[in-house]
């Protein structure tokens, strides 16, 4: 496990999140969401603080973080690009799209581009199955995505950041 120390800024955020969620019933998931929303990931060095506040063992916190696909323990790229791999998108050519995107970004799933612009992740259904194939970039879904459309989206975001 990564034992690095939380930066003073992150420590402040984690403590603030803990204070806001500690008394909720079943607080762990909402607390982890709050931390990830604010820091971008759940630092492993925050586990002892979380476990103490919620009377859990560090192992239990680690177990929960790693069980759920949504939580990550490292800083992602500036944008998270998720490609839907589920059946409806497969029926509309998502596999070819996936190959194109991986080539275009030069990364595999769960990897971040060297310039730190994109982290590529698979996702299983975005509920946009009427307009497959779909991708999600940060919190926005895009439907009927083809190579041209994704290239445009990637270029726009690269130029913006």
């Amino acid at each position, binding site marked *: 496990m990564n034992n690095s120390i939380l930066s003073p800024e992150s420590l402040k955020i984690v403590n603030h999140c803990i204070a806001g969620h500690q008394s909720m*019933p*079943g*607080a*762990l*998931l*909402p607390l*982890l*969401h709050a931390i990830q929303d604010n820091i971008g990931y759940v630092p492993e060095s925050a586990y002892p603080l979380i476990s103490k506040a*919620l009377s859990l063992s560090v192992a*239990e916190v680690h*177990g*929960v973080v790693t*069980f*759920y*696909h*949504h*939580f990550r323990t490292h800083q992602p790229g500036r944008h998270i690009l998720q490609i839907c791999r*589920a*059946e*409806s*998108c*497969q*029926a*509309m050519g998502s596999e070819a799209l996936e190959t194109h995107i991986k080539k275009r970004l030069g990364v595999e799933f769960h990897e971040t581009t060297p310039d730190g612009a994109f982290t590529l992740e698979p*996702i*299983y*259904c*975005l*509920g*946009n*199955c*009427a*307009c*497959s194939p*779909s991708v*999600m970039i940060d*919190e*926005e*879904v*895009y*439907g*009927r995505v083809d190579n041209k459309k994704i290239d445009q989206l990637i270029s726009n975001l690269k130029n913006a950041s």
Partner: protein
Amino acid sequence: MSIKIFVPIDSTALSLGANEVANAISKEAKAKKLDIQINRNSSRGLFWLETLVEVETPQGRIGFGPINPSDVKSLFDADFINGGKHPLALGVVADIDWLKKQERLTFARMGITEPTNIDQYTAYDGFQGLKNALNLKPEAIVETVTASGLRGRGGAAFPTGIKWKTVLDTKATQKYIVCNADEGDSGTYSDRMIMEGDPFVLIEGMIIAGLAVGATQGYIYLRSEYPHALKTLNEAIHQATKAGYLGEDILKSGKVFHLEVRRAAGAYICGEETSLLESLEGKRGLVRFKPPLPAIEGLFGKPTVVNNVISLATVPIILAKGAKYYQDFGMGKSRGTLPIQLAGNLKRTGLVEKAFGITLRELLYDFGGGSLSGKPIKAVQVGGPLGAYLPESQFDTPLDYEKFSEIWAVLGHGGIVAFDETVNMAKMARYAFDFCAIESCGKCTPCRIGSTRGVEVIDHIMQGHDIKKHVALIRDLSDTMLNGSLCALGGMTPFPVLSALNHFPKDFGVDAKEPKA
């Protein structure tokens, strides 16, 4: 008076550029000094026509679609706000055949109202069911839901009223209503549409459920992939609380109901009800043994109703119009309507709410218009990633829980994904095992290990290694998973696998004449 224009705010419409369309309309109207008002309505669910722009006229709301931002200028050039002719004009939207042929009960307001406008919700019959329920004893509410014949729309199809009765009859200091909004099945989006498009109907259904069983706290367990639904639900809960429908004294009746949205975190297994409860309690989403049933020992060990979004969102109309009204729709033991979601390779995808009994063929061709690619439809998967693949010879099966069960298939949550002839069904069977391996909670061996072994065995088949032996192995493994898994994930993965193998043996390199084991 300004002219009312409607541009949907549903996330599928947004995924096709609805915000850009709305901005372009607003900009163009400003430049032309036209007095218009843009309303952001929910989507009608005619997704092949999104972005569907509507204009209010004395004849009704007339539609134009599908509109891209680049089409907006031509709309104004054609004077669309005064009913001018345009190649993308659709006439009065409510008269479009695709919509007219539906029976929209749960989705009655869809596409018409603005999602978080509580006055519009009330004006379109909202909260009528709740008002009736407040005058009924809990037993009478439960009896109405039971008599309606409503069965769980998440997929398991368990009678909703019977579940509620168990919770009502279990004595406890605290009970809960949990809404399963972890809609993870590929090809489904009806829950999302309700939560983004008509959130008050879900809230109303949950309040009624609370009154029926004596629960004062509700949770909506919402998948993290739906950020728009999260915002809409929170805003709607805020509005409903302000208006006195939620809180310590519902419409001054002295009754209490609080509601909170909890975000899931991307685990498909948490759509299984006991795993969902573990997750709500802040734990890993491991499936629980049953018994005890959640209705007796559910969230935090208390009696809990766990219902799908559509089940709960259907309760208000049942309470408003009566059990008989609802159960007059449908066939056999499948009463009422099913919001069917057309997805994958189809020309006209979208939400079709119909009484049970419509056939797959009518849905795929009359509504769906056949494949988008123009190639023949080879297979359809009904009911999500754990649903069977059906070949053309089964397209005349009516949508009915029992009829589907007879052909070893499931309706599930009503998602229909069409594939054209380019699909390789051995690959889809491999994907089914792979998905199970990725999403398994790991508690039981058949699911945890079986899924991984399944991928390996299908790889052998696809590479042509001793096909006969490996096909026999797949059947044996499927038997173990079917009978030995703790929940539906491992227990139903054999549905897509074996249906692909039985109906499309050639894709596995198997002679079609070989007897099915």
